[in-house]
């Protein structure tokens, strides 16, 4: 049971993921990072079936890096998202589909921030809206409210969350949010 969230502001994207790596009912790790850095301004958040997540995410990550090495410039978030979706779709009707759900968050120097949702049936949806005049602090507050509600109503205990912010300067690590964060 995992949790990913992305909030897009006018010039940034805030993303958070829980930190639990579980094996059936046992929490094996409490500080597991579910975000994969695809490039200087793109993060891939990946949850789903145990081995598929890391295999698929690392495959996408290495291919995006390879593109940069070959061509000298980085893929845009939109191109990376579509590439990821195509890979999911290609494997969907094979014998070994990847059961992963993804959030791709990035900042494009021309188009601005972007947040893409992908699921294991390889659907791709770009969040078509962004909260106007949302400051970074507002976004973090909003995130804290979401986590509070989660801890109140979700049956599983998710004690801590990794939080990162992407803007035109790149990816920034924010403070980890723990249970009971006010």
């Amino acid at each position: 049971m995992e949790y990913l969230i992305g909030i897009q502001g006018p010039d940034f994207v805030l993303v958070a993921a829980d930190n639990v790596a579980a094996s059936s009912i046992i929490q094996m790790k409490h500080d597991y990072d579910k975000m994969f850095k695809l490039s200087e301004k793109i993060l891939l958040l990946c949850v789903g079936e145990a081995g598929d997540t890391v295999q698929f995410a690392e495959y996408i990550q290495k291919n995006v890096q390879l593109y940069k090495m070959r061509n000298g410039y980085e893929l845009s978030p939109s191109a990376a998202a579509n590439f990821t979706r195509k890979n999911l779709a290609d494997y969907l009707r094979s014998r070994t589909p990847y059961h992963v759900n993804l959030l791709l968050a990035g900042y494009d120097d021309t188009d601005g921030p972007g947040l893409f949702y992908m699921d294991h049936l390889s659907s791709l949806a770009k969040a078509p809206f962004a909260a106007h005049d949302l400051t970074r602090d507002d976004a973090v507050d909003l995130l804290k409210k979401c986590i509070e509600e989660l801890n109140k109503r979700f049956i599983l205990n998710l004690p801590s969350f990794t939080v990162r912010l992407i803007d035109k300067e790149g990816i920034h690590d924010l403070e980890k949010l723990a249970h009971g964060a006010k």
Partner: protein
Amino acid sequence: MPLEDTASTINVIDYNFGLSRQKTSNRNSGVPLHFFLPTSPDSAPFHYRPSFHFPASNHSLNVIRPFTLAHGTTTLGFIFQGGVIAAADTRASAGGLVACPAVHKITPIHSHLVVTSSGSGADCMLWERILAREIRLYQLRHRQRLSIRGAAKLLSFMLHPFKGTDVCVALTLCGWDKEAGNTGCAKISEDSTFKINDSSSAHSSQDVNVRAYSASPNSGPQLIYVCSDGTRLQGDVFSVGSGSPYAYGVLDRGLRWSLSRDEAISLAREAVFRATHRDAYSGNNVDLFHITAQGWKQRQREDLKEEFYRDMEKRAKIVDKRKRVTELDSYG
């Protein structure tokens, strides 16, 4: 410029699983880059697209087994200031039968890597051998020992084609990585035996007490859990098997970085003992390995029956004492 078509991107990947034609790299001076993979009609290599039809379900063809596979066990590993401890019970169960009371669930792979296994006994034995072979081949080809993280990733990638089949392997790699910059040759420790012939170069011994290793990702003690479902986790404490919840209970209470060697061994022993007490599929003896910068050392296998009787006596004494106290109270 559009990204290359997926199919061509995949074929450029240097390693390929399961396909029999050899692929070599000129950069590596003609060294074959493919990994060994036992062929099986149900394995699905990373990029393999079947051109003929398999049965509709994703699962392997069901083979009728004469007995249930062995799955019950308690194994654990943790890192502390003095290195890595790996401990396990020694019972192999097949359904309700104790198939063997004296199994080795902890196997040394090389001088600084020990693997605890759980899941199906046969699968674990096979994959340990495969892992040992691939690590040795890597060392011969690249004149440098593969790091523990590298070994874990290699194992994980080799297991990936068997995901979804009945292969059940959950290994915890407990080892020690040399500091970056050292050559891969290890100093031979008197107690440890080698599965492979390491060249025993006269290395100046590292004074472990003085050097405080950092818990950096590529040097010092390492503990990585690799499972056939694809999980690969690096951490400070892992326990695997049917007895793991009980072992976690004891470990989570007593584990600290600053434990002394004896305290750590005693904690590991206690955790396995309590797990074998409560879990029907764990029992018999406890094996314990301690891995440091000098290599692994094995503690003598201990029969937990003695420990159980000692524990019983202790409890009986406590009950006695309590009874005497309440008697005194009732008279007083």
